[in-house]
């Protein structure tokens, strides 16, 4: 059963040089308990399409879709109040640039406790206890102390884990994780991915994982969508994608892994398209 269903989603931005189509007729579906990975080149509309689902795009964006529904409810027709009931509780998102999404003027402890109190109705005391527990779960060192830190006093990877803790705090039914481990080294990345996967298995949470890291895809995804220039190029179950990538961009993605470098230059996508054209 699809928990999120998107058909023919288009997002256009009004810019000084005219209208720009960032997402061009994308279809996406994710089932309860499923892990969908979205990979694609930088600027291909991965974040924008998910921000459209969250209702977080600026006013300069025009969103059209034949369907955009969550658990059978039409997200496009929902009132702001109805949407607020869902967003932040049942549907949460780990944003791509963690430090930009934290408020610099408040401690990270205050910010996560706010989320717990407002969205889950916890008391101050319970919120504090739960915040501490979440910080431990995401592997923040000296968690008690770090609850009292401001965002600029945390390292890049620590901020990212604060964001992850906030996003999983409400035990969402759909979690959209936008490049959730970019600031983490592989040892912590593994811990975070294991945590997300265990939440996912425990609560049947659906997970949309936007990533450029094919290692993350290999270790988490059930199904993979490959996006290029605002369009979906390829969709496959994870095994087929790695076994037999169809689209040149997908092949380029797999080949551009620096460990596959031959000589002193890394292959880029244009090399692949050029090859395809020959």
């Amino acid at each position, binding site marked *: 059963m699809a928990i999120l269903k998107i058909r023919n989603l288009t997002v256009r931005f009004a810019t000084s040089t005219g209208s720009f189509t960032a997402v061009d007729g994308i279809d996406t579906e994710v089932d309860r308990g499923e892990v969908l990975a979205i990979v694609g080149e*930088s600027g291909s509309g991965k*974040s924008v399409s998910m921000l459209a689902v969250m209702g977080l795009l600026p006013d300069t964006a025009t969103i059209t879709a034949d369907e955009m529904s969550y658990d059978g409810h039409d997200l496009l027709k929902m009132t702001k109040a109805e949407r607020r009931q869902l967003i932040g509780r049942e549907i949460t998102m780990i944003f*791509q*640039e963690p430090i930009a999404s934290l408020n610099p003027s408040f401690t990270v402890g205050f910010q996560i406790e706010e989320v717990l109190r407002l969205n889950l109705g916890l008391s101050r005391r319970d919120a504090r206890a739960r915040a501490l527990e979440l910080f431990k779960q995401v592997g923040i060192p000296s968690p008690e102390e770090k609850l*009292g830190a401001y965002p600029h006093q945390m390292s890049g990877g620590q901020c990212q884990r604060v964001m992850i803790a906030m996003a999983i705090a409400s035990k969402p039914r759909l979690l959209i994780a936008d*490049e959730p481990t970019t600031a983490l080294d*592989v040892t912590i990345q593994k811990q975070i991915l294991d945590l997300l996967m265990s939440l996912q298995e425990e609560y049947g949470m659906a997970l949309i994982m936007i990533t450029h890291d094919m290692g993350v895809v290999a270790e988490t995804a059930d199904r993979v969508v490959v996006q290029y220039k605002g369009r979906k190029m390829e969709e496959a179950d994870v095994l087929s994608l790695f076994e037999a990538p169809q689209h040149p961009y997908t092949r380029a993605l797999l080949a551009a892994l*620096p460990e596959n470098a031959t000589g002193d230059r*890394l292959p880029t996508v244009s090399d692949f398209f050029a090859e395809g054209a020959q």
Partner: protein
Amino acid sequence: MTVVLEGRNITQDYHVSGGLFGGAKTVRAVKGINFSVEKGKTLAIVGESGSGKSTLARIIALIDAPSGGDLLIGSEKVDISQKRPGPEMRSRVQMVFQNPYGSLNPRQKIGSVLTEPLLINKPEISAEERRSLAEAMLVKVGLGPEHYNRYPHMFSGGQRQRIAIARALMLNPSLLVLDEPVSALDLSVQAQVLNLLADLQEEFGLTYVFVSHDLSVVRYIADDVMVISQGEAVEQGTREAVFANPTHPYTRQLFAATPVTDVEAIRARVAKRQAARAAV
């Protein structure tokens, strides 16, 4: 070979108010690190999240003064707590920050982000020339002249990361400190940026300090590698030596945890997941 960058026993202390729990205290984030880098080479700094990489990078890039130790650029001892670096030193040393969004002014168009360093440090360059240099730089990092008039929020995460790189390159620095510069980039754009950095290094003999948690990138770009853990350099050596024979447990752990993309491993994981589901 000429050493162009040297650190001697660098330390950094942060004073943190105890916040919710207990009183104020001092945390030593960098605990006496020594290093030297030769002209035209790349030193990669690797280490766990929170180990002190950005703290050290900011010291090398003359953003923060260290609490202790000496920093030498060229053969000149530089102490920014005594004397602010002048325009000449500022253009020589540039930094690409770990979080590009935070380092960009939301009300400043990209064109102005890129031309501003020139305006300040190289006022002899005409406005027209500044613009054409900026547009050329946008193309080099895989963006285009059409992005010149856009604001930072109108870009994707990876595009902003490239803007940060472009800005740092505008002044033709001789020492570039890059803090996780390609972490948000898809592999193809990452390749483009790494190729660009390699070209610039070859052409102009640039020296890089490159912070990364991605070992495959480090293996590609580094001449020397320094692994830091809890503020200390626990492993230092040539890339070949560190990759062939990692001696510190953290380095070994890093190698062991690197995700596998081979089809058999994926097949096994998928099968396990299906079995777990069938059992419910």
